[in-house]
């Protein structure tokens, strides 16, 4: 696998690279890099408008990518796949389009304590605009969502549940099927949005089977290019939502009195989209289809066990997110050193990890810490990368204690 990823052959600070920051952004396989290059080399043109061959071919490639991504998510109607810039934009789209249309003061949105800022701040903006109320479902000390408390927070004014599928800071996998079912059982009108950025990367996900209404993820964490993300929503729901941004390629007819809009996905894709990037993301899901998400998940689970065994040998580490349902993310602090110092020493050892709050300040506050050191795996991660981390931590410990 590693051989497919050119950046992993590079040295960092003169050392072999142990890239353990895939949760922040994944490295790209050659197949994705080639697909982006081909998109600009072979027959590049703008999509959807030109009558000439190049435009039609690029349009076909772009729409084929949409179809492949739909299939990857278990979605049969590719018109339910909206291309956005990233998961953040996908969530903002739902907040501003669905939220502003359907919610009013006093309506409740239910989030969890482990959300990324991308699944908090868009709802706070909506709160400031409409007066909706945010309710927060708590987690247990082991990082797992407290499902009972979550269910108890469902109420007559609950309109939306917005929850992450896998916690980016802890690696905890949320039981989104149960979460969605509980919401729908309580009131079938409640909509459920799932932030899947960290989930689609680590395991097979059949999105419609989760029972949610919206599913968002970003492309660059899924081995694809930056600048392209996905929002999935059921067709009838998307087509009942007003556009999020106005511009070209999303209108049916423009008159000064009234403009009518195309159906989804076009109505949410105003302006020229990230054409080559979407095509690159199509190549990324092809690559993942070949690798098989089931075997990716199995490999990462084995690595997780290996990492816990190796890191357990180092004194003074405290782990966060120790519940059983976990994806390939390990988060910890050290009694003998500040995450910032440890991250800087690991950098010199050729080990790339993320240190800090991981855009989850409320979660860090929940644990009473400023941040953690996070090692996150991808399908190219090997035991040797974890060995390099363990070695680097030992070095950091001797330098900092």
């Amino acid at each position, binding site marked *: 696998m590693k051989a497919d990823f050119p950046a992993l052959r590079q040295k960092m*600070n003169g050392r072999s690279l142990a890239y353990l920051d895939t949760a922040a952004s994944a490295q790209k396989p050659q197949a994705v890099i080639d697909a982006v290059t081909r998109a600009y080399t072979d027959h590049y043109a703008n999509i959807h408008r030109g009558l000439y061959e190049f435009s039609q071919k690029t349009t076909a490639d772009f729409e084929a990518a949409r179809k492949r991504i739909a299939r990857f998510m278990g979605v049969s109607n590719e018109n339910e796949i909206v291309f956005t810039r990233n998961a953040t934009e996908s969530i903002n789209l739902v907040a501003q389009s669905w939220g502003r249309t359907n919610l009013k003061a006093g309506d409740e949105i239910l989030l969890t304590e482990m959300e990324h800022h991308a699944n908090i701040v868009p709802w706070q903006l909506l709160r400031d605009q409409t007066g909706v109320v945010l309710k927060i479902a708590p987690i247990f000390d082991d990082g797992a969502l407290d499902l009972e408390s979550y269910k108890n927070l469902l109420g007559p004014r609950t309109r939306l549940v917005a929850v992450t599928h896998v916690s980016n800071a802890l690696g905890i996998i949320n039981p989104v099927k149960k979460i969605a079912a509980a919401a729908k059982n309580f009131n079938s009108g409640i909509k459920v949005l799932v932030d899947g950025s960290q989930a689609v990367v680590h395991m097979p996900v059949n999105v419609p089977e989760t029972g949610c209404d919206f599913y968002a993820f970003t492309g660059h964490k899924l081995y694809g290019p930056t600048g392209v993300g996905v929002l999935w929503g059921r067709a009838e729901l998307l087509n009942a939502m007003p556009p999020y941004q106005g511009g070209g390629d999303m209108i049916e007819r423009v008159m000064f009195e009234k403009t009518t809009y195309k159906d989804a996905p076009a109505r949410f894709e105003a302006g020229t989209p990230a054409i080559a990037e979407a095509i690159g993301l199509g190549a990324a899901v092809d690559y993942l289809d070949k690798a098989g998400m089931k075997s990716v998940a199995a490999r990462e689970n084995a690595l997780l066990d290996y990492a816990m065994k190796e890191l357990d040998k180092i004194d003074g580490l405290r782990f966060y997110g120790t519940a059983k349902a976990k994806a390939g993310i390990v988060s910890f602090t050290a009694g003998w*050193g*500040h*995450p910032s*110092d440890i991250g800087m020493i690991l950098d*010199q050892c050729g080990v790339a990890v993320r*240190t800090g709050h991981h855009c989850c300040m409320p979660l860090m506050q929940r644990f009473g810490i400023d941040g953690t050191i996070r090692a996150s795996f991808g399908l190219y991660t090997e035991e040797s990368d974890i060995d390099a981390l363990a070695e680097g931590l030992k070095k950091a410990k001797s330098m*900092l204690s």
Partner: protein
Amino acid sequence: MKSRNLSELADAFALFDNWEDKYAYLIDLGERLPSMDESQKTEENIVRGCTSRVWLIAAQKDGKFHFSADSDAKIVRGLIYILLSAYQGRSAAEIAAVDIRKSFEQIGLHQHLSPNRRNGFFAMVDRIKRLAAAA
């Protein structure tokens, strides 16, 4: 003890030929930094944008600035030591004229530690300049 000036620091760092020793010396410098009074570690004195907590304050006497700063991370404390050796006891005009990038390169640490926003180096520089300009 007396703080080292930039050229003394450059001489000291030149003695070490690997990153481990340079980092160890940086951590050692950080430990020599006078610690800041807990009462001054307020929200207001926090320098934002660092991966660790950094506090920085300035006092002015006879047109010269005296800075105190602290961090909960050891390597950042070492960076603070270096920063203060460039800015301590200078006038506002002198502070504005410091080429901190050049000073950092003079010390020879830049190959192993890039001064950046992430580790707070430039956030601290901005704060120092702002405090000096505002006085």
